[in-house]
C-alpha cells in the first residue's frame, strides 16, 4: 500500500510517500499565501516525481498549521504526533525530538514505543523559530543557507540579549553599525535561538538521544549551538525537513 503525508507549514509545504514501510519519495515547496494550492501542488509533485498517479495513493494524512486546508486528506494529525512517528521510524532509539519550524518550535519526549510521552511548544512569540532566523538573514544580507558555514568562522560570538524578534533585529543592526564581523553576529544569533529552545525543552526533561527535525536542522550552526546548550550530541538525518510529512505518511499507512 502507498500512503502519503502532507505537512503544510507556515513557510514550506512538504510531502512524503511511503510504500511498505519505506520512504519512496519526498518534495518540499514554499507554502506561499495559498495553503490549499500549496497542498495540491506538493501532492501532485510527489506523486508524479515517484512515477505514480494520484489514485495509486491509498491514504493521506495532513499535518502542520495548514492541515485543515488539505481537503483531499483522509484525516488530520498534529505535527507533534507526526514528528514523533517520523523520528521513531528513522531512529527508534531517539527519546527526544526538537523541531524548529517556521513559526513554532517544540520539544517532544518519546517513550520506548515511539509514543508521545510529553511535549512543549514555544509561547506566542517568534523568538526561537525559523522566522527569527529569516528576519536576521535579511538584516545581515546573507543567504540563510550560508548561516551554518559562516558561523564556523566566528571567533567571539556576539551577545544577542533581546528575546523579541523585532528588538533582536535592531540589536543586530546596531552590532553591524558597530563594525562587528558577520560571523560573530551569526554565531550569536544561533546561541540565542539555541538557548531559548533548550530552556523550553528542559521543561519536559531532555533524555538522549536527541534528534533535531524541521527545516532549521539543516543549519549546522543552530545544531551545534543547541548541542552545546543541552550538553549532548544531536542526531540530524537527511530527512529532518520532511520528518513531519514522513510521520504523517507512516500514520496514514496505519
Amino acid at each position, binding site marked *: 500500500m502507498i500512503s502519503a503525508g502532507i505537512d503544510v507549514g507556515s513557510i514550506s509545504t512538504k510531502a512524503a510517500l511511503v510504500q511498505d514501510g519505506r520512504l519512496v519519495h519526498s518534495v518540499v515547496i514554499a507554502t506561499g499565501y495559498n495553503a490549499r494550492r500549496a497542498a495540491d501542488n506538493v501532492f501532485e509533485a510527489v506523486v508524479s516525481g515517484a512515477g505514480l498517479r494520484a489514485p495509486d495513493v491509498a491514504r493521506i494524512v495532513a499535518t502542520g*498549521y495548514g492541515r485543515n486546508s488539505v481537503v483531499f486528506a483522509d484525516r*488530520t494529525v498534529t505535527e507533534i504526533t507526526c514528528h514523533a512517528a517520523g523520528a521513531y521510524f528513522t531512529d527508534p532509539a531517539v527519546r527526544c525530538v526538537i523541531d524548529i519550524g517556521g513559526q513554532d518550535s517544540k520539544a517532544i519526549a518519546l517513550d520506548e514505543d515511539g509514543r*508521545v510521552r510529553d*511535549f512543549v*511548544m514555544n*509561547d*506566542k512569540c517568534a523568538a526561537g523559530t525559523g522566522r527569527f532566523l529569516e528576519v536576521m538573514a535579511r538584516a545581515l544580507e546573507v543567504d540563510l543557507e550560508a548561516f551554518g558555514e559562516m558561523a564556523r568562522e566566528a571567533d567571539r560570538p556576539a551577545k544577542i540579549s533581546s528575546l523579541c524578534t523585532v528588538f533582536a533585529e535592531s540589536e543586530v543592526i546596531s552590532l553591524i553599525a558597530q563594525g562587528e564581523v558577520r560571523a560573530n553576529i551569526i554565531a550569536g544569533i544561533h546561541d540565542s535561538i539555541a538557548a531559548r529552545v533548550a530552556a523550553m525543552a528542559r521543561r519536559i526533561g531532555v533524555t538522549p538521544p536527541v534528534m533535531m527535525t524541521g527545516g532549521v536542522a539543516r543549519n549546522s550552526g543552530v545544531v551545534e549551538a543547541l548541542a552545546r546548550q543541552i550538553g549532548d550530541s544531536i542526531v540530524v538525518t537527511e530527512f529532518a525537513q520532511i520528518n513531519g510529512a514522513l510521520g504523517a505518511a507512516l500514520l496514514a499507512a496505519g
Partner: protein
Amino acid sequence: MTGDPARERRKIRCVSRMKEIMTRYYIEAKTAADNGRKVAWITSGGPVEPLIAMDVIPVYPENHGAMIGAAKMGRDLCEKAEAMGYSSDLCAYARADIGAAPIDGGPIGGLPRPDMLVCCNNICGTVLKWYEIQARAFDVPLFVLDTPVCHTGCSDAARRYVAGQIREYIGFLEAVCGRPMDYERMAAVGRLSIEGQRLWQAVLDTAIHRPAPLSAFDAFFHLALIVTLRGTQTAVDYYRELLAEMRQRIAEGIGAVAEERYRLLWDNLPIWYRTRWLSERFAAHGACLVADTYTSAWCSSLPYLDENDFIASMAEGYTRIYLNLGIDQMAEAVIGMIDKYAVDGLVMHSNRSCKPYSLGQHDIQRIVAERRGLPTLMIEADMVDPRAFSESQVETRIDAFMEMIKARGPRGEGA
C-alpha cells in the same frame, strides 16, 4: 429551529433561573440610589458578609470584567484604558473596569456608582492600586483588608492581624452607613454564607460521577451567585435547585459532554471570550473538563469557617484562599482535585492578566508529573483581552495533547 434532542437534553435548565437572578441583582444595584441603599464595590475574594448584614449592595468589578470578556467587549475597553495611559501588561479586569467606568461602557451600561470600595488583597496585589484609582475617581472612602500570604500556613500573628482588620472593617461600614452593625443579622448572614458554600461544593462534587453532569465551563457560569450573593437566601435557594438538577442528571445518565471518555482538570481563570469554542474543541475529542481550581476557590476555605462564630473565623477563612497560598500548598490542592475527580490530565491557562495565578504553574506541572505521572497542556492566553489569544496555536496544542492522552488511554480504564 429544531435542535438535536440529545443536545437539548444536555442543556442545564437552571441557566434561565440564574440569568433572571443576575438581571434582578443588577437592576437592584443600578437603582440603589433611588431606593436609599448604598453600593460597595468589592474584590472577588473580599469579605462580603458584613456588607449583606448592613444591607449594602455588593458589586464586583471582577464579575463585570468577566461579563465584558464573555460579551467580547474586552479588547475595546482594554484599548480605552491603554489610551488613558495604563500598560497593556496590567490585568485585563483592571483595564476593562478603568476603561468602562468613565463612559458607562460594557454589556450592562456600566456599574452603579459606588458609595464605598472594599479591597482585599487575598487574590492579588493589583487590586490595591486599582481600587485606589477608583476611590480617587469616584471620591469615595476605601477600606483595604490586608491578608498576609500563607506560604506554609496561617500563623497566629497573621490570624490576629486580620481579625483586627475585620473589626476595623465593621467600624468603617458603621461610619459610612451611619448605623451600628446588627450582630444577630451578621450571624444569620454568616450561616447562609456557609450553607451556600457547602451547596456550591456539593454541586461541584457531582462531577465526581462518570459522566460528569456538569463541566468546568458550566461551573464558570453558575459561579456568579456564590461570588456576588454569598450570604443571601437567594444563593442558597439557587444552589439547592442546581444541586437537585445535577442529581437528576446523574440519575438519568446525562453528561455535560456527549460521550465522556477523558476527564481533565482546568487551572486558572476562564478565557471568557472563548469558553464555548474551548468547550466544543475538547468535547470533540470526548474530553470533559470535569473540575477546575478557580470555581472551587469560593468554597475552599470552608474547613476554617465556623457557623457558630462566623465573624471570628472570617480572618482565617479569608486568608487561606487558594491564591493566597504558597506554591507547595497549591500543588497539594491540585493533586487533591486530580484524585478526587479522577482526571487524565491537567489543562493550565497561563493567564497574561493574572500573575499570582500563573506564577508557579510550571512548578505545579512538574509536581503533578512527578507525583501522579499526568501530562499538562499549557494554553497561553488572557481571560479578557483577546489580543493574547491565537486560535491556530491553541488548536494545535489541544489536538496534540488529546492525541497524546488517547495514545496513553484513559486512566479510569486501567493501563
